[in-house]
């Protein structure tokens, strides 16, 4: 039990922080209320530090994932906290400040907003700790439910409410689907423990194929979770929600549920394993293989469709947030490729071939980079007739930004190039790992499609580069929000993207996190070891060479 507490320490810290934030957020004194954000940050910091030192959990199907995943959550969470400043209650607080209104805890949103945010992150961390389908289900719901509220209340505009309604109802539908999938998976294997499921599935596969009910469960789970990661066919909400929600919330939506979804998918797929013979659903004799065929085909189709749909739709957008939403869909597709590739059997040869590690690293990079772009949107505003300033969300608003608001402009330029994956920025290394892992798994076709999609993506990312950097500004400089922390968040992420020169430790951590995931099916360990040896022995140089 105590070991479990150690594993869950970050979540516990976050939960405590949440409680404090809830109270503080309702405090009558503005100074104290304002502490909600710093306190949330502190909590995240502590949780992150704790997370780094979390030991491996042998009971988890992804035994090493916790430190990395939770630290990543905390780290990106910190950036998000900076970004979230002033998202809600801005006009209300201003009115209170001016003395027009008296503070009334009923009318403030601050407490629940930050609390929900922390809850969501807690859920994300729990996802990483999950060893059981029930746990996973609860964690996923804990991630999602707060975000529904956050999207809805992020602005007082109707579009936020529209975003909320779409997000919530479709989210519930998605949740129902993966819940049903979980139920079937349980039915097909007789256990909800992921390791148990893994063993049961391996046993089934070895004795004539995976049980159809289990298979249906896996498929339904994956599709249901596709909603969280915004993959086809569950991606429809993405653009509408990101556009409707305030930019900081969109940034969060692009990271938190997506990460949760990917971690959940990794868990489920790890239970399935990547050791099936290509083209069949039996275990590969040498332990080197891929996902079961139907899952493989499903995921591959989803991956291809997701990146393509995301990119081609992003091409047409004028709204920055919509564009970024579609780009977020596309990135999901990219990551799916690595997920399909899985932890290469050649993992011993080099960590660069571990697809799960690549996904984990990509998630971090994507989160950071994406926050940079959203931060720029979050920092720019246009005064509205109704007094409440509105975000600038049109591409044209970026025109000449590097000249009028150099900091924001450059943040946009760097982060867009990072998303594009231009070397030597952080995004390139992330994409590079996707490439290596997918090629290691022999997914050449997927890699080529990924490459072509990156090229399509270049077109709209270039817009994000060209407009601020190269165009001459028109008219006055756009107004900026008075929240320095947002700018700081942007600068911070841009700096991270730019100073990609030393992500060594992080890559290491990501790879370590994914280490041994899914490769330790007991029934297969021996076969795999044998195959590795055979591999080394078998490979003689082709005859041409030594002449």
């Amino acid at each position: 039990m105590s070991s479990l507490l150690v594993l869950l320490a970050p979540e516990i810290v976050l939960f405590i922080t949440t409680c404090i934030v809830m109270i503080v957020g309702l405090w009558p004194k503005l100074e104290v209320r304002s502490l909600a954000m710093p306190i949330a940050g502190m909590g995240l910091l502590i949780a992150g530090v704790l997370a780094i030192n979390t030991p491996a959990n042998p009971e988890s199907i992804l035994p090493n994932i916790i430190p990395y995943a939770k630290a990543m959550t905390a780290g990106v969470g910190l950036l998000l906290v900076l970004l979230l400043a002033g998202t809600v209650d801005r006009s209300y607080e201003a009115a209170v400040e001016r003395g027009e209104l008296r503070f009334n805890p009923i009318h403030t949103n601050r407490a629940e907003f930050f609390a929900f945010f922390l809850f969501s992150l807690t859920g994300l961390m729990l996802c990483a700790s999950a060893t059981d389908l029930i746990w996973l289900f609860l964690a996923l719901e804990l991630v999602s439910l707060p975000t529904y509220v956050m999207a809805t209340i992020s602005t007082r505009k109707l579009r936020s409410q529209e975003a909320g309604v779409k997000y919530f109802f479709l989210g519930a539908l998605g949740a129902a689907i993966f819940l049903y999938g979980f139920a079937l998976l349980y039915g097909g294997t007789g256990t909800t423990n992921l390791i148990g499921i893994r063993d049961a599935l391996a046993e089934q596969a070895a004795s004539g194929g995976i049980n159809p009910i289990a298979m249906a469960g896996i498929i339904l789970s994956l599709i249901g979770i596709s909603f969280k990661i915004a993959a086809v066919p569950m991606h429809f909400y993405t653009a509408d929600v990101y556009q409707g929600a305030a930019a900081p919330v969109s940034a969060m939506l692009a990271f938190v549920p997506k990460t949760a979804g990917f971690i959940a998918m990794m868990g489920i797929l790890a239970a399935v394993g990547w050791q099936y013979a290509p083209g069949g659903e039996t275990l590969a004799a040498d332990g080197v293989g891929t996902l079961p065929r139907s899952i493989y085909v499903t995921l591959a189709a989803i991956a291809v469709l997701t990146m393509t749909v995301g990119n081609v739709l992003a091409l047409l957008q004028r709204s920055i947030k919509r564009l970024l939403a579609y780009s977020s869909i596309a990135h999901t597709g990219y990551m799916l490729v690595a997920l399909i590739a899985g932890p290469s059997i050649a993992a011993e040869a080099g960590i660069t071939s571990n697809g799960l590690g690549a996904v984990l690293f990509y998630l971090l990079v994507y989160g950071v980079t994406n926050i940079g772009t959203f931060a720029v949107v979050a920092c720019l505003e246009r005064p509205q007739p109704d007094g409440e300033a509105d975000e600038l969300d049109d591409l044209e608003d970026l025109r000449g930004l590097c000249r009028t608001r150099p900091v924001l402009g450059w943040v946009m330029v760097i982060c867009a190039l990072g998303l594009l994956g231009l070397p030597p920025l952080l995004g390139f290394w992330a994409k590079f790992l996707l490439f290596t892992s997918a090629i290691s798994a022999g997914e050449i076709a997927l890699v080529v499609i990924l490459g072509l999609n990156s090229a399509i993506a270049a077109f709209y990312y270039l817009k994000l580069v060209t407009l601020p950097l190269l165009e001459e500004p028109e008219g006055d400089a756009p107004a900026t929000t008075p929240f320095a922390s947002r700018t700081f968040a942007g600068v911070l992420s841009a700096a991270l993207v730019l100073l990609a020169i030393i992500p060594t430790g992080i890559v290491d951590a990501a790879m370590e996190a994914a280490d041994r995931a899914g490769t330790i099916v007991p029934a297969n360990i021996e076969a795999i070891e044998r195959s590795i040896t055979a591999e080394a022995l078998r490979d003689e140089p082709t005859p041409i060479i030594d002449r």
Partner: protein
Amino acid sequence: MVSTFASMADFLAPAQASFPEGVGSVTLAHYLFVSVAMFTMGLIGFLTRRNLIIMFLCTEMMFQAAGIALIAFSRFYLHHTGQSFVIFVLTVAAAEAALALALVVLLFRGRESLNADQWHSLKG
């Protein structure tokens, strides 16, 4: 197709023995059928109805379909995992319901309507 169902039937065959005498003729397959039917009905309801509250109720129905499946499987395997899962599902469903109602109220204030089709200004 045939083989799939055949293997399914194989899997379900011992189920009959596991259930108590009183409901002897009701197999796991029956429960699953009910569950699938509920899920499908929920889905169809979600797709066809426009009222936000009814739509939400439909998702609840889908949740409960999963619940039925879980309980059936739980009984089938003769352990409690599935049943405890259902407890959590119910909890979550309750939380969701609370949230849904709050949301619906908020939305109603915005548009004076509960028709889901009202919300289509964000698109493209």
